[in-house]
Every structure is written in structure tokens, then in C-alpha cells.
């Protein structure tokens, strides 16, 4: 599935792209600084903050006490006073400790203070996945933030977006939450060397197709892409859409696709109930452009807490096989096809190599 256009194009891993994005954003603007637990140690958040300490020093790159709540307030205050913080959390689950600051202050200040205050901050977080992350190191909580006016939420599914969204998030004058995915850290795409921004509110059609639309959030778009390849072998052409940003959401691109295909499968990296998968389906239902009732389905985390043991964990997450089977059923109305598990296993390792 390589989309490399030239041999000379430079390929970066997701974590390198994150780091390069921050590096260039910090070079570009001396008000930008980064803080967060463990960003300055030798593991450098799985490499995603590597090189920053050496380049920018400990005034601009520093770890913090284990105080997510106050440190978020500190980032907000610094942003109000003219700085541009990037606050890093190694797991999204830990954001639950600073919801008050994020929701009651960061998201509301510009409005609540009548436009006189801005909070240009970036929150970097990661969805954990791999064996045994369990209940408290695996949550995709983007829908909680997308529910709140004043917050922006973006979800890079590949290295190109990891860099471009980081740069755009830093330039944005609002609180922007970047949801990364642990399993993507090793994935690669072509990543331009210059500082570029990926626009918010613009979905990307990863693959065109006429039979059904699959929207995949975060890493799930890659799983969906793999499913689409398997479906193609069955003669089913899925259109695969990466929303790229959750809030703002480019609904028009989805609407146009569903209007064409008449079928929609949304695959989220999260629970379904009151999630962005519900939002997307609801907007399709409300659409005045889509006249015929489309067939729709949602997939995401099982409606359980995340277990550690692999036999349950495997059943907890959607994967190319279950996505393909659901899509097949949606497209054909039939249940018959079961793809070969072996060929599905490759899925999350398969890499989409831009450029976009």
C-alpha cells in the first residue's frame, strides 16, 4: 500500500515526526515550551521528545512533579500570559485527573472572559495498547473532550499527520488535544523536512470505493484500511475516511461519501455510547442531503472495561478481521465470509506511506 512518490522522499517514524514537529514549532516561536512527566529522560516518551532537551535546554523542556491537575492549570496560566505550552501525558487515562482545568478553564476562558483571554496550549496524549495495558492505560477518551465547546481534538493516524497536526496545534490559539496511539509510534510515512501544518477540519479519503464508507478514528483507520484491502479481494470496494480531526469534524466529506455508498461503518478507538461514532452516525441521520436511509454500523471498544489477558483483549478491540466481516455484512446483507486470520494479523503493522 505504499504511496511513495519518489525514492528520495524521506521516511520518518511517527514518534520521530512528533519530535520533529515539536522541534520546528519551538524553533519557530520562542514562546513555545514543553512540559510533562518524563519528557526529558532517556526514554523521551518513546522517542517522541528526543533531542528537544539538548536543543532547547531545561527551561523549555522539563519534567514536572506528579501533579496533573495543577500542572494543567500551570500550562493554562502560562498560555494566558503569552506562552505556548505543550503539555505531555504518556497516557490519555491520566487526563481524567485534570478534567477540571481542561474543561472548566482551558475550554471556557476565551468565551467566559469575553474574548479578552486566550489559551493557546497543546495537550499531547497517547492511547495505550499492547498486551496487558489493562483498564487504566488504554482508554481513548476523545469523545469526552469533543463534547466540550472550546476544545479542539485531533487524532493523527500516521507520521505525516503527527508532525503536521503538532505544528498546527501549536499555532492554534485554542487548547488543542492531540490523541496519539502507541501502536502507531513505529509506523512510517514520507514526512517533508520543512515545517508544514495539517489543516484542522479536513478529513482525508484514504481509499475510494463505491460500496460502503468506513470511517476509522486514530489507529482504527489503519485497521480499516487493511480490512478494505481484504474486502477488495471479495469484490467489495470500501471508501476509507480518516477524519484526522475529531473536533472540528469535517462532516461534509463523510456525508458526500455516504450519499454515494449508502452504507456507513464507523470504527472508533473508544467506546460507542455517546462517542464520536454516535455523533457521526447521528449527523448522517440528520443529513438533508442523504435521502435514503443508509445502512449504518458502529464498532469500537467492547462495552466493557479493558481486560489484560490476551484472549479477552483480542475480543475487546476491533481488528481487520472483525471490521472486514462487519463491512461485508453491511455491504452484502450476508454473513458468510470469514477472512483468513493470518492475513489479518498483519494489519496494524501495515504502513501507509504518504505523501498526502
Amino acid at each position, binding site marked *: 500500500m505504499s504511496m511513495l512518490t519518489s525514492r528520495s522522499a524521506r521516511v520518518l517514524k511517527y514518534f520521530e515526526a512528533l519530535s520533529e514537529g515539536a522541534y520546528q514549532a519551538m524553533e519557530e516561536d520562542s514562546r513555545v515550551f514543553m512540559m510533562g512527566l518524563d519528557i526529558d529522560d532517556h526514554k523521551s516518551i518513546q522517542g517522541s521528545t528526543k533531542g528537544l532537551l539538548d536543543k532547547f535546554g531545561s527551561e523549555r523542556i522539563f519534567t514536572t512533579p506528579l501533579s496533573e491537575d495543577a500542572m*494543567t492549570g*500551570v500550562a493554562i496560566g502560562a498560555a494566558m500570559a503569552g506562552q505556548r505550552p505543550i503539555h505531555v501525558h504518556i497516557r490519555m487515562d491520566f487526563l481524567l485527573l485534570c478534567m*477540571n482545568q481542561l474543561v472548566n478553564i482551558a475550554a471556557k476562558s476565551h468565551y467566559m472572559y469575553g474574548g479578552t483571554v486566550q489559551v493557546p496550549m497543546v495537550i499531547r496524549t497517547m492511547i495505550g495498547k499492547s498486551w496487558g495495558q489493562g483498564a487504566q492505560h488504554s482508554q481513548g477518551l476523545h469523545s469526552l473532550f469533543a463534547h466540550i465547546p472550546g476544545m479542539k481534538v485531533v487524532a493523527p493516524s500516521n507520521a505525516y499527520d503527527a508532525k503536521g497536526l503538532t505544528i498546527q496545534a501549536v499555532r492554534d490559539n485554542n487548547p488543542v488535544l492531540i490523541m496519539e496511539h502507541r501502536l502507531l509510534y513505529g509506523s512510517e510515512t514520507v514526512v517533508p523536512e520543512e515545517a508544514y501544518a495539517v489543516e484542522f477540519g479536513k478529513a482525508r479519503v484514504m481509499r475510494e470505493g463505491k460500496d460502503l464508507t468506513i470511517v476509522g478514528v486514530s489507529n482504527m483507520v489503519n485497521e480499516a484500511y487493511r480490512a478494505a484491502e481484504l474486502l477488495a479481494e471479495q469484490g467489495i470496494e470500501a471508501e476509507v475516511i480518516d477524519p484526522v480531526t475529531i473536533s472540528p469534524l469535517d462532516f461534509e466529506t463523510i456525508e458526500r461519501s455516504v450519499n454515494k455508498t449508502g452504507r456507513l461503518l464507523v470504527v472508533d478507538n473508544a467506546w460507542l455510547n455517546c462517542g464520536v461514532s454516535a455523533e457521526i452516525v447521528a449527523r448522517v441521520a440528520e443529513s438533508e442531503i442523504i435521502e435514503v436511509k443508509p445502512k449504518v454500523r458502529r464498532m469500537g471498544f467492547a462495552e466493557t472495561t479493558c481486560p489484560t489477558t490476551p484472549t479477552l483483549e483480542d475480543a475487546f478491540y476491533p481488528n481487520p478481521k472483525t471490521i472486514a466481516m462487519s463491512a461485508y455484512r453491511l455491504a452484502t446483507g450476508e454473513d458468510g465470509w470469514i477472512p483468513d486470520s493470518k492475513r489479518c494479523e498483519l494489519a496494524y503493522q501495515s504502513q501507509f506511506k504518504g505523501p498526502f
Partner: protein
Amino acid sequence: MAPYSSIEARLYASIALTRRVEEIIADIYPSDKIKSPVHLAIGQEYIASSVIDHLRESDFAAGTYRGHGVYLSKGGDVNALMAELYGKKTGCAKGRAGSMHLVDSSKGVVGMSAVVGTGIPVAVGHALAIKQQGRDDVVVVFMGDGATEEGCFSESINFAALQKLPILFVVENNRLAIHEPLTKRWAADTLTERVATYGIPAKRFKEPDVLAIHAHAGDLIDTIRKGAGPAFMECHTHRWFEHVGPNEDYDQGYRSLEEGKEWRAKDVYVTLGKQLSKDEKYRIDKSIEEQVMAAVEFAENSSFPSPEELYDYVYAN
């Protein structure tokens, strides 16, 4: 107005401004013209006034939902305050904030929050920005005794002390959170001793000794400005009115009228006023009266935002 003849006069002027603004708010309140809950600091004004007296415009002051005094002492616009309470377009937050979220960025008044404690780390963040920007400004953050029970208080003090940030923490300890006395909330009345363990200067004032508080705050702010790192003050005080609203409520039984009387007898507004020449006091009072009346008129005459403005300011450009 002429410059003040003394510290006493300057402090009196600041305290009197808050006092009179809040008294007028209390008077107007029953008319329902004020469109948000008001938490009056009457009786407590001397703390914000005496500490903030040492600040310059580029310094920051951060208060709470009981923040009229912090806002006014730091130079926040009186008209914009009154208009904000009226819900008018000319308010300091264009009618979106009400009394609980006052702000005046041009004067260094940090936006206030109605979620207790929440403003503390945000103030620390302002101090971090000052340090990063290489300025010699300072932040003063005011909070109630209740706010110190929130985890973010300890977290904030630790971080500010760790990073030697230019910030003064001031607790207005009125011994009450709404109607709950300290004894039902604190294991020990040792807040100042606890904060001192972070290795920062920490001092308690049990009495409304305004000049001592003023002098001490001045010393601290001086050294903070020079890079010594944060400091802490705890001032015992008394809330004269009900927690929220324009009335006294000693008849509700949760605190004694005796205590109220004792504190009223020590009213800094009165005692300081007595130290001024009749003439100077008259001049100050008159000027304040004019300002307040003008602010009320301004608020009354301003217009409400129109419904179409609802969607303004959700996101910054």
C-alpha cells in the same frame, strides 16, 4: 485626584472603593438588575488592598468568585465591573462572566474562577510565564481557606517552590467555607506551618493589622521580584455577609453574632478612615461616591448583548 498624603490614605482609598462598590451592589441586588450571584468581601477588603498596593500594572493579581476587591484594587475598571454584573455588553467580559469571573487583562487582573481552588495553579502558570519571559513582574494569588483543602493547592505550592517562581500566595482565612467552620474541614489549624515546610517564607496574621500586613507583603514582594521564589501569607479575617447574596445571616445559627461584632469593631475601613484628615477623607469619599454612581449609571445605560452574539468567542482566531 490629588496624590495621597500617606500609605494610610492610599489604603483607605482602595478599601473604601471596594466597600462602597459592594455596598451599592448589595443595595441594588434585590431589584434583580444584577444578573448573577454575588459573593461580597465586605469586611475582608483590607487584605487585597494592602497586598496589591505593592503591585504595578504589569504584575498580576488573581482572585476568586469573591473577587470584586482584587479586581478593583488592581485597577480594574469600575464601570466595566458594574456593567458586567448587570450583564451588559460593556462589562469586563461583555456580559458573559457575571460577578464570579471578573477579568481585566489590561490591568493584570487574571480571570477568576467559580470552581474553588482552580485559580491557584493558573496563577502559578502566570508566574512561570513571567520567569520564562525574563520579566521582573510578580503574581499575587488570593484564595479562601477552603481552597487550601483542594489538592491543587499543595501541588501548586510545591511546583512554585521547586521552580522558584515569582508568586505570593495569600489566604483570606475567614474560617468558613459557605457555612462550614474550619473545625469540620481542617485536621489542624497549621496551614502556615505546613506551607513553611516547602522551604518558603510563610507567615500568619491573626488580626486585621492592615499596616503590618502591608509592610510584610511589601517586603515579600520585593524579594520575590528579585528572584527569591514564592512566599505565603495567611490572614485571618471575617466575612460580614452571607456566603452569597446581599444580606447578613447571623440569625442562621452557624456562627455567632458575637464574633461578627468583634470583627466589626476592628473594621479597617473605619479605623483607617479615622487616621485621615477630615479633608482628605472627604475628598476620597466624594471621589469614590462619584465613581460608583457613575459606574451604576454606566451599567444602567449600557445595552445588553444581542442574542446573535451568543456564538462569539467560542474559539479564538
